[in-house]
């Protein structure tokens, strides 16, 4: 059974009847121009945004699951997170256990390990670089060990080293029998890491399939309004504006 089934998901003025399925072990990339509805879709699936249509997790309607239980199954890393206080990295990661109401050392340790942040676990978040912080925010979600991880533009504003590092973490997490949906602007990295891509245009889902099926010149120039150069045969694949 699909881990998550979204049917006719609609958010007024932002999302029009989006339907998609995601299986365990899959990393799905959410692509589209700014304002296409990527964040809205992620927020609706996480229950942060009022929507109509249906969302089912393992066949159960999401509305029938109490919020704290939903939070155990679905974890979201919103765009542009920041900490109001000078917390330590370890304390921030531990916050990810909140849906479970525990501070499970083993789970926190695994998250720190997966995100590769053990060397600065005792540092204060303010002292870290943008790239290091991005992995801390990710580790916070990983600590809750959600079956479905939603990540909203986790690599925006990161250098290429950290872009790869974060995408690796997401890919590896999906391979542990979890589902991952990531909103991403870098189409080359989307082609390289994602199993399937979901292309949104003005709130409508216009393509869903393997990178080869979705990353075509017609679809991309329709969604982004610029001609693109696509070479998926190359290793790694390249998708760039002309």
């Amino acid at each position, binding site marked *: 059974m699909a881990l998550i089934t979204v049917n006719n998901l609609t958010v007024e003025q932002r999302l029009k009847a989006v339907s998609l399925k995601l299986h365990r072990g899959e990393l799905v990339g959410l692509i589209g121009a700014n304002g296409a509805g990527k964040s809205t879709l992620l927020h609706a699936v996480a229950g942060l945004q009022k929507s109509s249509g249906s969302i089912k997790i393992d066949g159960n309607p999401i509305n029938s699951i109490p919020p704290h239980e939903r939070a*155990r199954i679905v974890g979201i890393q919103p765009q542009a997170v920041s900490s109001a*206080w000078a917390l330590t990295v370890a304390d921030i990661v531990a916050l990810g256990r909140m849906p479970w109401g525990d501070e499970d050392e083993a789970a926190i340790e695994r998250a720190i390990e997966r995100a590769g942040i053990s060397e600065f676990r005792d540092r204060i978040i303010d002292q870290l670089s943008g790239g290091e912080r991005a992995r801390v925010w990710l580790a916070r979600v990983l600590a809750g060990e959600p079956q479905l991880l939603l990540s909203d533009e986790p690599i925006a504003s990161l250098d290429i080293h950290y872009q790869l590092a974060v995408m690796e973490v997401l890919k590896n997490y999906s391979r542990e029998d979890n589902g991952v949906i990531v909103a991403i602007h870098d189409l080359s990295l989307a082609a390289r890491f994602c199993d399937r891509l979901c292309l949104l245009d003005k709130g409508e889902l216009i393509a869903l399939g393997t990178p080869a099926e979705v990353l075509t010149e017609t679809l991309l120039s329709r969604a982004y309004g610029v001609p693109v150069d696509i070479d998926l045969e190359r290793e790694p694949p390249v998708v760039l504006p002309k």
Partner: protein
Amino acid sequence: MARLITNYLTPLLIFFLLLIAWLSLAYGSTSVGVFDGLIAWFNNEQTEAALIIGEIRLPRTLLALIVGAALGISGAALQGLLRNPLAEPGLVGASQGAALGAATVFYYGVFAGLGTLATAVAGLLGAGAALLFMLLLAGSGRPALVIMAGLAISTVAGAALAVVLNFAPNPYAMQELVFWLMGSVSNRGLDSLIILFPALIIGGALILSQRHLLAALSLGEQVAESMGLSVKKGSRITVLGAACLVGSSVSVAGAIGFVGLLVPHMLRPFVGHRPDKLLIPAALLGAILVCLADIAVRGMPLGRELKLGVLTSLIGAPFFVWLVWKERKRWL
């Protein structure tokens, strides 16, 4: 040293609190044995020691401790809720709202049916209404907006207070109210504790019940919401708790400013800056500081008494200036 304080913060604070409470009972123009006085008072003896300790110093000390604890914990809770280090009961309009409520009761006898509870209830309603309007006006926890909304609500409450005074039937109302607003814990009987103590327990419990929310809010409303917490409901409970604490404190002791601002800042480095772990220590340190300030006020030369609230403002206001300066350096 810092690590030692971190590990034993709460026991250390409790120790100091007991020490200061003892000092407050022992300190005064007449030297009386604290133990003897307390025991005599408990036994209902009419000795001088029993009267001085039981009727004068004990209420004053307990009042200072409870008001301080209420202000400390509500400051910590409001700062955590609004994710704003500048939030303080006085700066977000709660104190002025409480003053308005209490003054209305003073001079117009509203809620007369409630007897001695009337001022406290009015103070609580005033503080709660002010906080709710502030939250509605600010629309979010954004620091600049919260401070602006707090200022706006304080101004409105101040204007309404002026109207209340203007039309007060008692010609000395203005002077009385100004003195009362300066904040003091002297000359209040033990019966004022009947209001304050339950308010501290209820308000404190409401705030403590939301400690997980305060912790989660460190990373913003979206993150808190995504972790299965109800930000809306939790915010209301926290605000209600703070209103309960600030409203009852102001209605009994007037405005004792800046305690709620100062205390969380002093403690943050020792609790790893965690808003949830800050609450209990903030209550304890608030109690210690207000009691200490009250001892200092009592120690001043006789004549015109320096009001407790004036002293805390004298200490707290420069600190506020320093906080703004620090914040400014981040942006310039």
